[in-house]
């Protein structure tokens, strides 16, 4: 059985090596390209959301490369994600592919995750299952930590692409850190590497909070590498959604990091009183948080037709009016063009810089 799991940001880096060592024949899909997207779009329902289409493209390419089993997380709404696997399986079977499909319908439950791991690997002992699962979670947290360092150093770098090279190296090092001790030894090294990048210490970059639907936020292919582009415009990104936070809210592997969903729920009160699925509550709560903290503006990104984020987008445009706070919502789908995104980003960043320099912002 050659198992494939569709990509989501750097997640596959967190689990592939570890699971392989425990006897899972992993076949990660090739990194998404325009071909992946075109394949996905061609076979998806017209109004399915972008993550669905990219995932489907991932599956097709992985099956073409010899995978014969797909693991797709499921769940029960209200967002469409919980139903992805069913529709994707139906489409793939119609295309004539033969494979085993498993969907974990309770991806929020630790016991179910451990069972899934024991199911697909050589691990039979429950405690080994926990140990492996938590190692994967810690690796994911390390990857996110490296990415947040990237956000800090990227706008300040003196030599173009320095930071990107370091991030690539850091990801590689975390990938190789296949045990707890190795992982703990790796993190200080990564920090040292980032600190060694020559930077413009006098630069005081504009800050932009990046929020929205989690897949589009963490997957550079889906958002046309928006964080890198912002960095190149000398903007410091403050990302409000992290995969490791999402995992931590459910599996509590970082006991000192507060539950971000609960926190956002508290912050959003008065604007969104009940989570409307997906990342809607995070988007609303953290827009308010970023405003309070003096982040210069919020960039809200989501897939076209994303239901929860449309709720959030309606509400944060009110917050923007109420508090005179710059918010830009952008939707992404297969028709999005680079020129469009760059133009809008540049205009937004210009606006933020001018506001800051004129002291219009209240902070």
């Amino acid at each position, binding site marked *: 059985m050659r198992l494939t799991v569709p990509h989501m940001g750097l997640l596959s880096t967190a689990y592939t090596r570890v699971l392989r060592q425990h006897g899972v024949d992993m076949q990660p899909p090739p990194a998404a390209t325009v071909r992946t997207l075109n394949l996905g779009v061609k076979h998806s*329902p*017209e*109004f*399915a*959301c972008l993550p669905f289409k990219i995932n489907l493209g991932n599956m097709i390419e992985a099956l073409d490369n010899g995978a014969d089993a797909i693991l797709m997380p*499921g769940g*029960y*709404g*209200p*967002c*469409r994600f*919980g*139903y992805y696997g*069913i*529709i994707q*399986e*139906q*489409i793939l079977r*119609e295309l004539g592919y033969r494979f085993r499909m498993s969907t974990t319908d309770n991806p929020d439950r630790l016991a179910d995750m451990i069972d899934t791991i024991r199911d697909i690997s050589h691990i039979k002992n429950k405690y080994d299952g926990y140990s492996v699962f938590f190692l994967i979670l810690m690796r994911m947290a390390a990857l996110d930590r490296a990415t947040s360092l990237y956000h800090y150093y990227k706008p300040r770098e003196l030599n173009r692409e320095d930071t990107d090279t370091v991030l690539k190296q850091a990801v590689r090092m975390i990938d190789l850190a296949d045990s707890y001790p190795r992982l703990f030894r790796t993190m200080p090294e990564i920090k040292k590497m980032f600190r060694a990048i020559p930077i413009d210490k006098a630069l005081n970059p504009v800050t932009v909070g990046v929020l929205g639907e989690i897949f589009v936020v963490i997957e550079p292919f889906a958002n046309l590498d928006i964080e890198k582009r912002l960095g190149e415009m000398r903007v410091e990104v403050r990302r409000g959604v992290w995969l490791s936070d999402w995992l931590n809210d459910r599996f509590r592997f970082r006991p000192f990091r507060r539950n971000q969903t609960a926190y956002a729920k508290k912050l959003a009160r008065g*604007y*969104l*009183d*009940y*989570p*409307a*699925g*997906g990342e*809607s509550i995070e988007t609303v709560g953290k827009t308010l948080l970023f405003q309070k903290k003096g982040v210069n503006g919020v960039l809200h990104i989501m897939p*076209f*037709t*994303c*239901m*929860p984020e*449309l*709720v*959030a*987008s*309606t*509400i944060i*445009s*009110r917050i923007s009016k109420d508090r005179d706070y710059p918010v830009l*919502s952008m*939707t992404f789908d297969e028709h999005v063009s680079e020129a469009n995104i760059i133009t809008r980003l540049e205009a937004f960043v210009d606006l933020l810089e001018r506001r800051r320099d004129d002291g219009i912002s209240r902070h």
Partner: protein
Amino acid sequence: MKHIRIGIPRGLLFYSYAESWTRFFRDLGCEAIHSPETTADILKEGIRHTVSDLCLPVKTFLGHVAILKDSVDLLFIPRHVSMEQESYMCPKMIGLPDMTRACFANLPVVLDPLFHVKQFGDKAIDEFTRPVAEALSVSPSRAADAYRKHMNHHAEVPSEQHRQSERLLAENGAVPRSSGKMNIGIIGRPYLLFDRYLSKNLFHVARKLGANPVSLRPDETEIREAMAVIPKWVYWEMGKEVVAAAHVFFKDDRIDGVINVCSAACGPDSFTGDLIRKRLNRQNKPYMTLSIDEHASDVGVQTRLEAFIDMIARVTV
């Protein structure tokens, strides 16, 4: 004593529960005010106040809020999260009260009780009616009792939609083949089908073209049967009903063709549409998706309907 005037916008769940809500509020001594039927101007109001990507029914709903808000004391916009253990409403329904508040600067008080069977189980109705009772200063038990009386879950709701469907079935369900008229099953969300402006008066147009349009609100058995045919329980309340209605129509020999009316860019319908087409239409019955957005026109709908009816006529001859 002056009655409290409670505004119920004519949109979304109005088409499923309006009558029960109205009776419920009347029972509590209030006056329930409905906005008039949708018009082009109402929709225009809605579009003016919303972000562009929102779906047509939500825009329409907000248009109704716009014309209702200044003439009522309270706006009733309940937050329906789940109607039963296995299902959710669409995220936009869950966030509806908050979205409404975000879209308008000067609103009357919005009464937004939470209906959440998944969380509260049997206590859902008590949880739902408590804030209503508070706002109207009646006792919580009285409100809960009134609600139970008028809202025997959805099985017996004498709502406008339900009544209309029943009537349609009575009129058309028994039509014998020999009458020469074809029966067309029409599926879709009540707030789209039964809003005459949004659906471009589909039922009427079909009848004028010599067909019998039939709609159906599936009962629990029909829903269970349909869910057994597909690989996973459809967890959207309304999506599930659309799928079940499709299942009934595809099985029924008296139905010659099925039209799925959905709003463009509807999240759940983008998936259930795929399920219906690929999983349920085993006999390969004539099937058409009619997707409606703010640019849809009477003529466009009529043309597609004519073509569909012509096609069925040619197939069945």
